[in-house]
């Protein structure tokens, strides 16, 4: 078709015209990068819980959310029922320790949902469509991580809210509980950001979904096991500084340490940071983890062919 002659056989210029069939072009307002990014964020957040996707993809996130809420419900029930018998004055498990206790569920959630948000775009080339919108690559990366972070935060925060409301109804002191709850929520934000960043990096490097899931779980699980082992041994050996340094290498122990330092939360690990310098180092480590994963993602997506 492209080498169609300028003139037809009789030597006259072509007389065809493009008819105006009366289709109306879109003349409404065209939204810029901001609204595109916002709706992209909301879509990602919904997709992380399987909303707007097939019924099968709702099963895992919803089950995990239910399993996250179950221990909180039981703990609150025990608190309400047995408060006088056991002379309880506070929650059986602190807000800051709860994510550490249920970390298996959180890890599985992050590991399963990071690839659904990131790997599939790469594998099926849908990223081309996203980058064709008025949205830069860096915004794509940040929004994807933000969706995952928000979804993870909801997962961690929901049981905390349940425990808080249950605790208030069980007449725990309001001021103290509110302070601890807000500290727990701040920790949940930090933990969600750290986990999502790490998981997103691994997922963006692995195009196949099953492998990405496995890789994220392995990274989170092995890092925590190693850290817990080192902390236990360093505690026994009375060289707790080693254990405190080791705590920075797993998101769970790291964020728990930050909560101990910033909000004076109950300790969830055996060697929490005990000096101001170590506490600041923990805070810095959170920043490095989040910004570092964002940086690694930017570097990864710089070479993605749209």
């Amino acid at each position, binding site marked *: 078709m492209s080498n169609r002659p300028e003139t037809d056989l009789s030597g006259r210029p072509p007389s065809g015209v493009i008819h105006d069939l009366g289709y109306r072009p879109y003349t409404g307002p065209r939204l810029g990068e901001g609204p595109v990014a916002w709706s992209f964020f909301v879509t990602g957040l919904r997709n992380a819980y399987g909303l707007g996707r097939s019924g099968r993809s709702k099963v895992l996130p919803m089950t995990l959310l239910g399993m996250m809420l179950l221990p909180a419900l039981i703990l609150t029930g025990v608190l309400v029922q047995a408060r006088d018998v056991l002379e309880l004055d506070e929650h059986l498990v602190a807000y800051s320790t709860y994510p550490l206790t249920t970390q298996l569920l959180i890890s*599985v959630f992050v590991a399963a949902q990071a690839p659904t948000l990131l790997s599939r775009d790469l594998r099926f080339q849908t990223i081309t469509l996203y980058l064709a919108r008025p949205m830069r690559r860096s915004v794509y990366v940040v929004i994807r991580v933000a969706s995952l972070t928000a979804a993870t935060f909801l997962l961690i925060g929901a049981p905390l809210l349940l425990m808080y409301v249950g605790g208030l109804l069980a007449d725990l002191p309001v001021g103290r509980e509110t302070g601890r709850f807000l500290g727990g929520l701040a920790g949940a934000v930090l933990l969600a950001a750290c986990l999502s960043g790490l998981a997103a990096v691994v997922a963006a490097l692995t195009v196949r979904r*099953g492998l990405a899931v496995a890789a994220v779980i392995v990274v989170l699980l*092995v890092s925590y096991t*190693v850290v*817990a*082992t080192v902390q236990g*041994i360093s505690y*026994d050996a009375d060289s707790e500084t080693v254990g405190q340094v080791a705590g920075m290498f797993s998101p769970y122990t790291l964020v728990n340490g930050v909560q101990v330092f910033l909000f004076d939360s109950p300790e969830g690990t055996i060697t929490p940071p005990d000096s101001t310098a170590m506490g600041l180092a923990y805070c810095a480590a959170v920043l490095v983890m989040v910004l570092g994963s964002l940086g690694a993602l930017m570097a990864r997506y710089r070479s993605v062919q749209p």
Partner: protein
Amino acid sequence: MTSTTPTTPTRSPVISPTVVRLGVHGIFGRRRGILLFVLPMLLIGLAVLVRALVGQDNDATELTLYGLGLVVLVPLIALLATSGLLAPEIDDGSVSYLLAKPISRHTIVASKLVVAVACVLVFGAFPMLVAGLVMRTGEPLVAVGFAIGSLLGGATYCAVFALLSVMTRHAVVIGLIYVLVWEGLLGGLLDGIRWLSVTRWSTEVVDNVADLSLVDDLPLAYAVVAMLVVAGVATWRTGWRLRAFNLTGDE
């Protein structure tokens, strides 16, 4: 393929060198091969750190070799090694070329499993031996016990994961959940699981060789027989499953 006569004059060997070579390529020709190197290095690095911190300490050694090595690293290495063997070929359909060859399906499975078990030996049992020797130089039996235990347990895991990988496309995820929830979480909480847990069985072997007591009240004979039975049945079922393999796959 159904026309293969049962009375083949030349019986195929149990191990096919070509399939072994393909299996090695399947594991190390991909990026996941890197993890196989990283995990043992973590273990040995940790062993050196422990030795530097507490010297030759029994509790610390048990915590490291059992809690990290036997419960977490050995199953993961078996999973990583096995997941690279059959699953990618089934995924991209190239398994049909392998199955079209006049090689017994059981030979294919056995050859692939030889590679996986060799991986467990090199990346699981040997690092455990080294880590054990680093932490307990005075008592080499501890290291030897953990090496034998992880080899036996790892080989059993390989057979189980191989069966899983021909049964479902989500073998890696299901295998991980099995390792994490059944062997790790529930195995640590409920004592009764020792009768049904590959890790506890291999731990019983460690207990007997190294004279420790990590798992109570589990007969050694039961543990060894259980591992052999599970490994044998899983291997045989994998070959059986491949024999009746449906090329259209699921979904």
